[in-house]
């Protein structure tokens, strides 16, 4: 399963590295969202820095929608989905591979966004280990849930509108937890983060397990 996962992840990342859609379109979009928040909330630096954790994760969430659509978009071209189904790769491995490729892309995006909130929102970074650890954990959960629901919407005519409706409510606990951890870390009170980190761990574990089990059923059909 893990060998298959590495194969699929490497394939997805190779496609992204060559097409540069993620760097040329998704990344600028994420930065644009940061600027739009400033337009919506006013340029008062106190407001923006107080809300920085939540805004950061909201920007990640919106960008993740694009990354997930893209991840299944590349399978739609040239009947690649059928090829994937016929490849004999383990379904759980395909799920982990696609989620892994999205994790890598989102982590790169989060580094840039992190720099973005430091520069634009005047945020001080505290507790770097907590920030990095929780971000990796939350990103893994986000990618797992995203790929599971992405597969539900894949290949349907209404996939662009269906995916956010399915994923965003399911991600509500993740957004809550990740934003609270970020607030605690940025606000210099990392002690408050403990229950939220546990919640992130549970969310990520549940969705990774669910995806590995359910992906076979979603893949075998039609």
């Amino acid at each position, binding site marked *: 399963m893990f060998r298959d996962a590495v194969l699929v992840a490497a394939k997805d990342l190779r496609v992204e590295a060559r097409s540069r859609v993620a760097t040329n379109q998704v990344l600028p979009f994420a930065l644009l969202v940061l600027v739009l928040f400033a337009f919506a909330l006013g340029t008062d630096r106190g407001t923006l820095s107080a809300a920085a954790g939540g805004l950061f994760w909201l920007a990640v969430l919106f960008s993740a929608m694009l990354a997930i659509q893209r991840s299944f978009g590349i399978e739609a071209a040239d009947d690649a989905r059928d090829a994937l189904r016929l490849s004999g790769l383990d379904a759980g491995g395909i799920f982990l591979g696609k989620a892994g490729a999205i994790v890598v892309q989102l982590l790169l995006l989060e580094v840039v966004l992190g720099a973005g909130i430091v520069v634009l929102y005047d945020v001080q970074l505290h507790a770097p280990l907590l920030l990095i650890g929780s971000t990796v954990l939350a990103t893994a959960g986000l990618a797992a849930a995203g790929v599971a*629901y992405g597969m539900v919407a894949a290949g349907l005519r209404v996939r662009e509108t269906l995916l956010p409706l399915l994923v965003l409510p399911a991600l509500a606990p993740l957004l809550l937890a990740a934003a609270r951890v970020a607030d605690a870390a940025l606000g210099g009170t990392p002690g408050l983060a403990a229950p939220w980190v546990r919640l992130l761990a549970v969310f990520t574990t*549940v969705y990774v397990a669910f995806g590995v089990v359910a992906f076979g*059923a979603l893949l075998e059909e039609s």
Partner: protein
Amino acid sequence: MPTRNGVTSALGAAAIVLLALTAVLALVVSPAEVNQGDSVRLLYLHVPTAWLALYLSFGVTSLASALYLWPRTRSRFWDMLAGASAEIGVLFLGLTLAVGSIWGRPTWGVWWTWDPRLTSTAVLFVLYLGYLAVRGVPGDQAVTSKRAAVVALAAFVDVPIIHQSVEWWRGQHQAASVLDDSRLLDPQITGTMATTLVVAVVAFTVLYAWLLAHRMRVFDLEHRAGQEDLTAALAERRAEAAELGSAARATP
């Protein structure tokens, strides 16, 4: 399945009688509450619709979806049951939220509070709208049924996490500064108020069974109509081909 049979007729009649009884008990017989006044009567609607939607409907949908996904028990029956139950659940959850909001306005002074139960119920409502959206996607029935079943199970595993997260989220900000309805309802309720509530819950449970039977019947009729259209289209094409064949033979 015939349009109606003895069981559905009996269920329908029982639902009408019980709902009428609930209305009389809730509006006339039971007294106004000391603190809430007449607005307490809304709870005789709010509590049973919440029970019907959150526990009965979505419980049945989760169970039926699991049975549909399990290869050994896969049949169209479980798919229809899951879909019918979810539709009724979404309808009554919408009613629960609306009635709760109307109750909250005079009691709490606001239409909406970010109370953990309210918030997680709202998220659940949107999750099941997504489920119905997947079911409504046009195309291969077997594909959308299976995907919808996966979404229903995902919603089921997500619910405890959502609930825990909003519980903590609100817990951090402030303790409940207003009366929450669990404390109002659970221990102190006695006499006609308790009777009314019990009758209301039974009435809505019977209503659920009746609506479920009829929704499944309509699903079945839709399926059969689809099959008949297909058969008719096939017959038409065959007749066309035979006509062309004989025309070709007539003019060599």
